[in-house]
């Protein structure tokens, strides 16, 4: 786990300020930005994956039962998934 930027002493910084670990942005949860959230109606869902492929935040994932849902840590609530769903299976609801 990386510390927040404002807790680093200068001595703790890497040479050239290189970030040696990949993908650490995952530690930053953009889910806090959300004011609406998507809800999947699995009766309507055809598991096509359009909600997954169009998510700019990699916040939609496929569950073990092949249906899709959102990752609350990262979903910013943009509603692209809802707009692009071919069967209108995704509804945006107010709140987180």
């Amino acid at each position, binding site marked *: 786990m990386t510390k927040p930027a404002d807790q680093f*002493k200068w001595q703790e*910084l890497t*040479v*050239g*300020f*290189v970030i*040696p670990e*990949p993908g650490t942005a995952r530690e930053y949860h953009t889910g806090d930005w959300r004011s609406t959230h998507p809800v999947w109606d699995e009766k309507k869902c055809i598991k096509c994956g359009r909600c997954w492929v169009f998510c700019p935040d990699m916040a939609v994932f496929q569950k073990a039962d092949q249906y899709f849902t959102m990752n609350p840590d990262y979903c910013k609530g943009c509603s692209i998934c809802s707009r692009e769903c071919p069967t209108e299976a995704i509804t945006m609801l107010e709140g987180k």
Partner: protein
Amino acid sequence: MTEPSRKKIGVEVSIAVSEAVKQCDVDVVSAYPITPQTHIVEHLAELVAQGELDAEFVPVESEHSAMSVCAGSVAAGARTFTSTASQGLALMAEIVYCVSAMRLPIVMVVANRSLSSPLSIWNDHSDAMMVRDSGWIQVFVENGQESYDHIFWCFRVAEDEKSLHPVMLNMDGFILTHTIEPIEYWEDEMVKKYLPPFQPKFRLHPEHPLTMGAFGPPEIFTECKKAQDQALIATMPVIEKAWEEMEKICGRKYSAVETYRAEDAKTLLVTMGSFSETARVAIDEMRETGEEIGLVSLRLWRPFPFEKFRNAVKNAENLIVIDRAMVFGGPGGPVASEIRSALYSGKKRPRIVNFIAGLAGRDVQPDDFYQMVQHAKTKIKDGTEDEYEIYGVRE
């Protein structure tokens, strides 16, 4: 210890410099031609074309891209060289600042030349002074042999794991680049012994996916700059060691601050670059007339060698600092300003008289140094030594 080779050959200094780059077995050379650097990159292109140097020669469309290509290639782990001057350095200046903070150990020869306008292709130090605060290790050389020797030094200092800084070798345009001098080449074995292979701490490669050149929000930027400053200061032992080792290899002794007939001198000339050689001739002549004068030649410009400099001038009453660049509307030349700052906190401070001379190739002969010493005496007598003088200007 390798027996130093003693055979000297007459060669244009630019060619010798390129031969040294070849001997360092660089992987990438990227440059854009500009007078008076051209002979260096032309010769490197020739060496690559002839198969004598196995390197990628990247003939970019601008100096900005030259430094950018260097950033990419050294980030990939390749030993990387470039060279420029004047307007070229100005154009690439943005990236010059980036690569030092990113700790990318590029070696660059700057064939020092004045900055426009008016356009001039001739030598002074205004280009080097423009990037004074760029965070590079910056060194000045006095003659052809020093230029050649310091290419090996530059790569060693740049790539040392305790350094990892870009290094700028400043050599006076035309005065050095286009002069044929007797130069003693190193045997390849000596280079091999002196310069270990480049082993980057971080490199761009899919095996270790890392992020270089990340964005610095305000909460961390100040810490980044402190770390950068401390890292540059911490290169001093690497720099000193590289000179010590060089003496063992080739027998020539270099130092951050060099003195000539300075021990008992009341007055010291302070110079950088090829002026220092001329100044030595002038000092010999003045010494014969009983003048108590010597020379301090500043070789290392960044990191500034505070201790060594203070020590070198501790017994002097007067310093005559000769700058080769302007600071418009400022306190005098950049070297003089630096030296005033370096000495201000001392208990015993010498007087500092500042001349700006030799702009854009204006010739400065031994007699001109003599004249500057006489002017300095008058200024001290009149109490006007704080006012810098552009030497030789017609008015």
